[in-house]
């Protein structure tokens, strides 16, 4: 549905997007993940025809975003970083305006507007002035605007920014319900969002793609070792000695107990070497109280940091 080939965008000496290539299949949700300023917004703006690329091509539904811009724009619903709303309009007149400029035929307009209002839970706010709405509601109006012409492709730039936790869950569910009928690209710098909603993730940093894969694959691929978390009130020195004797255990971190809690220990184990039973046996052998012991797999957060932060990678390598 979307093919991006070698896309580059430079502003003078600064390269915001650097030879980026990826594809999105029909009905898929693609997550665009990266720190602020990584080039997510620029890539989206090129895809929506807002700005031309310096180099490379992008095709949406077979149409080139630059040469057949009008065809592409007809097929895309786009929510920019800030919802592009007119404060003086009511929600309904605004959606009517957007439906008109997106060439929705007059007879289909009322039904399309109702549908967009229903999907974004805005039905009871339809005759309210947009300037009287809270940030979260404005964001929803922005999403409704991207849906009103029932586009094949929906591009959402940070759709959950400014929403409260309940609204975030609603928006995520909405996005998931749209997949299948629509092809969706969403950008975010919030990691759980990607693992919760997306079929595939593009991790982008400093304009370059760091990784493209499913959230599951990314997690397992980088799992490498396993982390074990233990809560036990053992004396520190003997505990360290004991753990040092277990083959495969490394990088022991001991956090002292906080008020009312217990001392927390994290140990990393080499891959394919489950040492949890050995640790448990040793602790019991020493007669130390054991409150908790469980394995932690590396989260997307760790992967993300590993891929995007040079410092983190460096620290990992040197230890």
């Amino acid at each position, binding site marked *: 549905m979307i093919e991006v080939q070698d896309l580059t965008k430079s502003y003078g000496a600064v390269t915001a997007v650097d030879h980026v290539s990826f594809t999105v299949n029909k009905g898929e949700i693609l997550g665009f993940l990266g720190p602020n300023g990584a080039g997510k917004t620029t890539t989206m703006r090129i895809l929506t025809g*807002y700005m031309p690329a310096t180099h490379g091509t992008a095709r949406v539904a077979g149409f080139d975003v630059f040469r057949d811009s009008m065809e592409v724009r007809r097929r895309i619903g786009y929510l920019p970083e800030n919802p592009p*709303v007119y404060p003086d309009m009511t929600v309904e*007149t605004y959606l009517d305006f957007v439906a008109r400029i997106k060439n929705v035929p007059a007879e289909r307009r009322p039904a399309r507007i109702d549908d967009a209002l229903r999907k974004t839970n805005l039905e009871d706010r339809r005759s309210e002035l947009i300037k009287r709405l809270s940030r979260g509601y404005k964001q929803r109006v922005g999403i409704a605007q991207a849906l009103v012409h029932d586009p094949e492709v929906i591009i959402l730039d940070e759709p959950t920014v400014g929403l409260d936790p309940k609204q975030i869950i609603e928006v995520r569910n909405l996005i998931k319900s749209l997949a299948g009928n629509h092809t969706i690209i969403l950008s975010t710098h919030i990691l759980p969002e990607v693992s919760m909603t997306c079929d595939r993730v593009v991790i982008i940093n400093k304009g370059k793609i760091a990784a493209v894969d499913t959230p599951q694959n990314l997690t397992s691929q980088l799992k490498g070792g396993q982390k074990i978390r233990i809560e036990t009130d053992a004396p520190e020195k003997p505990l360290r000695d004991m753990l040092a004797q277990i083959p495969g255990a490394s990088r022991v971190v001991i956090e002292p107990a906080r008020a009312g809690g217990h001392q927390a220990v994290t140990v990393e184990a080499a891959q394919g070497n489950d040492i949890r039973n050995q640790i448990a046996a040793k602790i019991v052998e020493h007669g130390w109280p054991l409150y908790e012991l469980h394995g932690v797999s590396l989260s997307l957060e760790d992967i993300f940091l590993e891929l995007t932060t040079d410092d983190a990678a460096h620290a990992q390598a040197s230890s």
Partner: protein
Amino acid sequence: MGSLYAIYRKEMGHYFVSPIAYIFIGLFLVLTAFFFNVILAEVIKQTFQMEMQGMRFGGPSDFDAPAAVMRSFFGLLSTLVLFFTPILTMGVYAEERKRGTMELLMTSPVSELEIVLGKYLASLSLFALMLLPTASYMIFMVLHSDPRPPWSMLAAGYAGVLLLGGSLLALGSFVSSLTENQLIAAVVTFAASLFIWVLDIGRNSDSGASAVLQYLSVIRHYEDFARGVIDTSSLIYYGSFIALFVFLTVRSVDSMRWRRA
């Protein structure tokens, strides 16, 4: 075409939902009504003086009072236009860019020409609506004059104001498309309008350059209209002026895609 109309409607809605249009039209009417009174009183005084002179020296007076009122009134309108049009156009693009709604328009299947024309026609409509009530003063005057001046004179005068206003609105839209700051847009538009206004400053010298400058001045052509004369060269002048600035605005809006950092 549908998109152009949608943008036109949106702009008109924007003028009338907010207090802009009402304040604007209200102020304009208060000012024009006041000055109409002043002009009328002045011309009546002049007429009496002329008649007195006519009686003293014999022969009928050839002072055309209605024409004098019209000339003064249209002169006044042109001055007000200079002050009102920059305010009318200052937000046309500046506000849109500031709010980020330009991104919506430019990622919708709407051409730049449709955006520009929709907005331009809306500002021109508001301008015409603002002028419309002032016609009642003129009609009142024409109906009470004896002999009655031809209606065509009045029509020519209003055609002139519309063309003059239309030109300055086109100029103002272009300036607004260049900046995100409304105040800058208004001030620059005012300065540029004033500059084109006074180009005929050398009207008394008869060098070739002065003839060219006179032709380029917006107000030179207006004076013909105010006298009830519609000159083809003036029509061409205003037509080209508007077309040029609409074209420049389209180019400027289009170039936003490249300028955005």
